[in-house]
């Protein structure tokens, strides 16, 4: 996976906010996960913007950090989501 990859969030995964956390539920497996505030922002970005590159650019501006740093964090985040079966990488 590279920053040029495209990510697809599964149709069976739903999110809701509880307090400052984002809760993800996979309806198929009934597994649920919690994302902190930053993870929640990342996840919402992936939902809205399928391109990792574009997501990274928006997030870098949002968090006021370098594009290089945000790309590294975003790739690690997507890898973790992928390992939990919450996204697919075409």
């Amino acid at each position, binding site marked *: 996976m590279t920053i040029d990859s495209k990510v697809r969030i599964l149709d069976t995964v*739903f999110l*809701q*906010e*509880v*307090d*400052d*956390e984002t*809760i993800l*539920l996979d*309806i198929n497996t*009934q597994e*649920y996960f*919690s994302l902190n505030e930053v993870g929640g922002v990342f996840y919402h970005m992936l939902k809205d913007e399928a391109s990792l590159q574009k997501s990274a650019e928006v997030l870098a501006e949002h968090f006021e950090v370098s594009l290089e740093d945000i790309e590294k964090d975003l790739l690690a985040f997507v890898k973790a989501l992928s390992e939990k079966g919450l996204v697919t990488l075409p």
Partner: protein
Amino acid sequence: MKKHLYAYGYKLLFSSLKEENNFKTIHIDKIDKFPSNNFKKIINFHTNQNRTIYLKVINDFKTEKSFEKWLFVVDGVISFLCDTKTNQVYYQKDYDYTDERRDYWLIHIVLPMFFTLKKSYYLLHTGAVNINNKAVLFTGNSHAGKSTLTDYFLKKKHKLLSDDKLATFKKDDIFYCVPSHPYHRPYRGVEDLGIKTDNFDTKQLPIDKIYWIKPVKENDNILINELIGIKNFEVLRYSTEMDLSVDLDRFKYITDLANTIQVYEIQIPRNMDRLEEVYNSIIIHTKKND
């Protein structure tokens, strides 16, 4: 076919609520043999009361249609054929049947599941009592002490809302619960409804707080801490009725409840002599955090 007149506490669900909740009566009748059906899919539940129990549905349990008709089986005891569209439940006896067992399974599993699948109410597995005209709920793992605590509040003259399964719903941004059945079980009995109590509330009440019981050693302190985020959600998810999977509607309901009602963990010493202390701690806490 003989008509069975059902007159337990769940009747209150219909008398105390408005017609917008879709129905006022569920008909429960005995039948000698179920008509032929096409229930092909079996959903196995955890063993309950040392019985094998399972659900049979027409097809995959993922479409609205598949929730309308289903068969709940308590192996060797009784089967319930339920139609949530017509509000009809038929039951068929098996070799180990008794009227008491029918009532137990109906009250504890079938009706809660009926309301859940009909999406009329959201059922929580909690004890609940009236404190200052608000509902306070006690939940926790099996053997955590839900019934013991609920029973102690009854002894202190608080009205019972439920000893085990509580119907909840949201109206005008407020979460309410409905008194569910007027029985409490200060002991562990198998397939036993428990002791009927007259000290039972008959009106719907707003839900005030939920306490997750965490048993600790007999001499430990009683501590109360608010749960937030995923911990809050987990308590409510765990307290969800039965082994039914969480669909999107239920997911939204749980998270809405989590964002609206304060959920606390209460550490309760495993010591019956300290129940008065626990009682006082909860009373003070509910007042302080009103």
